[in-house]
C-alpha cells in the first residue's frame, strides 16, 4: 500500500484511536462499577458516541472552549481533561477534577477549555455564546462549541443561542449529538421537525448532518465548520447522527428500544470498529498496532479506578470552601 489516504498523519490517526478507545474503556468500566454500586449518584455514558468527540476535539486547542452535556465524559477526555482526575471526581474523591464537588455531571477543567459537563440540558449553548464572544474580543481565532443532545435541542436556551450567535456573528458552533432518544422519549415524538439543520436554517445558520459514527465524516465536516468560525465566518451547526450503547443513565433498562436494536447498534454501528476497519483496510495502521493502544487504554482506566478507590474522601473542611459563605 502506497501512502496514507486519510487527511491525518499516522500519528494523528493513532491519537484519535487512543482517544476513542480510552473513552470506550472508561465508560464500559463505569458501567460495570456502577452496577456494582461502587459509584454514587447518576452517570450518563458516552460509549458508542466516541467518534463525534474525537473527530471534533482533534481540531481544537486549549484556548478553544467547549460546553458539554450531562453525557460529558467523552467530551472531557477528548478535550484533554486528565482521566485520573475525572475518575476521582466520579468517585467523589479529593483531588478530583472538581475536588469531589461536581461529580460525573459537572466535570470541568477551564485550563483545558472544558467549561463543564452540565446537569441542565441546553444550558451550555448560551455559555458558549459568551465564550465565543470572549474569543471574538481576544482576536486569537479561538472558537467555542456547544454540545447538545437531540432532546435538549428543544430548550429555549438552545434556540435563543442560535439566534444570538447569528446576530452577533460569533465563532460559536452547535453540535447536536442525535442519538435518537431524549431519555426514553424518541425524537419522533419529542421533536416537531427532527432535523437540526432545519433549526439552524431557521436562524440563517448553515448546518450539516453527518454520520456521527464515522470518525472521518465528523473530522472533515467539523474541520470546515471550525475553520469557518476561526476566520470570522460565524456560527454553524453540526448534527451527528449517532448511537448510544447504554441507557440514558446507568440503571436504565432501555425497554423503550425496539427488539434487536441494541444488538444491531453494537454489531453494525460501533464507531471504533468502523475506524479500525477503515484504517486497517487502507493499510495505514495494522491491527497489531491498534492492539497495544487497546491494552494501554485499559491500563490507564484500571489505574485510574484503583487510584480513585484508594483516594481519600473530602472532609468537613471542604464543605464550605470554594464559595463565599455569608453568616
Amino acid at each position: 500500500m502506497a501512502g496514507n489516504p486519510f487527511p491525518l498523519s499516522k500519528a494523528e490517526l493513532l491519537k484519535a484511536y487512543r482517544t476513542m478507545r480510552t473513552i470506550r474503556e472508561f465508560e464500559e468500566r463505569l458501567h460495570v462499577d456502577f452496577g456494582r454500586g461502587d459509584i454514587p449518584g447518576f452517570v450518563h455514558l458516552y460509549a458508542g458516541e466516541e467518534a463525534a468527540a474525537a473527530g471534533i476535539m482533534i481540531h481544537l486547542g486549549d484556548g478553544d472552549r467547549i460546553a458539554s452535556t450531562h453525557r460529558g465524559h467523552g467530551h472531557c477526555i477528548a478535550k484533554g481533561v486528565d482521566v485520573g482526575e475525572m475518575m476521582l471526581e466520579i468517585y467523589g474523591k479529593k483531588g478530583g477534577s472538581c475536588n469531589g464537588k461536581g461529580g460525573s455531571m459537572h466535570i470541568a477543567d477551564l485550563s483545558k477549555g472544558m467549561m463543564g459537563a452540565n446537569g441542565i440540558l441546553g444550558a451550555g449553548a448560551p455559555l458558549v455564546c459568551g465564550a465565543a464572544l470572549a474569543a471574538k474580543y481576544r482576536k486569537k481565532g479561538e472558537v467555542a462549541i456547544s454540545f447538545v443532545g437531540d432532546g435538549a435541542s428543544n430548550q429555549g436556551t438552545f434556540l435563543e443561542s442560535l439566534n444570538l450567535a447569528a446576530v452577533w456573528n460569533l465563532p460559536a458552533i452547535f453540535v447536536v449529538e442525535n442519538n435518537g432518544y431524549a431519555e426514553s422519549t424518541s425524537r419522533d415524538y419529542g421533536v416537531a421537525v427532527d432535523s437540526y439543520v432545519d433549526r439552524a436554517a431557521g436562524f440563517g445558520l448553515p448546518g450539516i448532518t453527518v454520520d456521527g459514527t464515522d470518525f472521518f465524516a465528523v473530522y472533515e465536516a467539523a474541520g470546515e465548520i471550525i475553520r469557518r468560525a476561526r476566520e470570522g465566518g460565524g456560527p454553524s451547526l453540526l448534527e451527528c447522527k449517532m448511537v448510544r450503547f447504554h441507557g440514558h443513565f446507568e440503571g436504565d433498562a432501555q425497554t423503550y428500544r425496539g427488539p434487536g436494536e441494541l444488538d444491531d447498534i453494537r454489531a453494525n454501528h460501533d464507531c471504533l470498529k468502523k475506524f479500525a476497519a477503515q484504517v486497517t483496510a487502507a493499510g495505514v495502521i495494522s491491527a497489531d498496532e491498534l492492539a497495544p493502544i487497546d491494552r494501554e487504554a485499559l491500563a490507564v482506566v484500571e489505574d485510574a479506578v484503583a487510584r480513585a478507590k484508594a483516594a481519600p474522601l473530602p472532609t468537613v473542611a471542604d464543605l464550605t470552601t470554594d464559595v463565599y459563605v455569608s453568616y
Partner: protein
Amino acid sequence: MGEGPATIGIIANPVSARDIRRVVANASNLQIADRVNIVLRVLTAVHSLGVNRVLMMPDRGGIRAMLSRHLGRERNLHHQFPAVEFLDMEPISTVDDTFQAARLLQASGVAAIVVLGGDGTHRAVVRELMNGDTGIPIAGLSTGTNNAFPEMRESTLTGMAVALHATGMIAPEYALAPNKLIEVSINEGQRHDIALVDAVISHERHIGARALWKTESLHSLYLTFADPEAIGLSAIGGMLQPVGRRDPGGLAVHLADDGASAGVLLRAPIAPGMLRDVPIAHWEPMPAGQAFTVPLQGGVVALDGEREMPFDAGDRVRVTLRENAFSTVDVARCLHTAAHMGLLRHPSQPHRRHPSWQATRSP
C-alpha cells in the same frame, strides 16, 4: 394495471441536502417541513387521479413523524388522501434505508416510485432496482444539493404524471423514458456500483464527509449526459461538449495535474455557489458498452457527487456506459399526452366534489 387498486411507492430521503456544501458553498437546505409538503402534494395529486394506496419508506430523519402528524390533521379537515402505509423496515439513517425500501417496493409490485432526493438518492434507488430487473420506473423530485438527474418541477405535476402511468391511463410506451447509467467495476466486478450522472475519479483516497468539492483532487469524469444547465461536476462536461440525457453515448473528461499542463482551463459551476477553474487535459465521447480503464494508482470513485469507492494502487477500475438501463416517468410527455387526449376532461358532477377516476386505457 388498471385492475385493482393502483399503488405507488415514495422514497423521500430526509438527509439529502445536508452535507458539507452548506458550509463551504452556501448550498440550499430543503427543510423537512418542505419535504413533507412535497410528499403531501404528491399524495393529493395521485389520489385525485385514482391512486388510492401509497407505500412509503419510513425514516428516522423526521419525515415519517411529521407526515403522520400532518395526515392526521388533513383527515380532521376531511381532505382526501390515499391510504399511506410505511414499509415494514427499521430505518437506520444510512443509505441502506433507501436500498431496503427500494427492495421492498419492488417486491410489493408498485407501479412507480417517486423519489425525493438529489443525484445520490436517485442513484441508490436505481442501484437497487437494477438488481431486481422489474422495470419499475422512478419519478424524481429535486430535493438534494446537486440535482442534475431529477428535474426541477412542481411535485403536483410529477404526482399527476405518475398517477396517469400507474392507473394505466397512459401506456408505458408513452409514459416512460429510457435512461443511461455508468457502471463502475473494481477488479472485474469484485466491487461494483453505478452512477446516474457522473462517476468522478479523485486523488483523495478517503470518504470523509462524502461530498466531493475540491477540484484540485479531481482526476477524471465519466458522464452519462453533460448538460450546460446542470449543476455539479457534470457541468464540467456540459461546458465542454454538451451531451443530452436521451442522446446516445456519454462523455469522458480527463483533467490535467495543474493549469500549466492543461490544454484548457475551464470555469465551471461544480457545486451550488461554487465556480472553479478546472484544468482540462482532454475529453472524448463515451460509446455505450465500451469499458474505460482508469489510469490512476489509488484514489476514490465518487458516484453522483459522493465519495463511495476508494481504491488502491493495483486495483483495476473500469467504467462503462449503459444505455436503456432503467425507466423514468416522462412527466412532460405524460402531461402533454393527457392534454392532447383530453384525459382530464369529465362531465360535470355537482354532487361529487372528489370524483374517483376510473382507469381509462390510453390509445
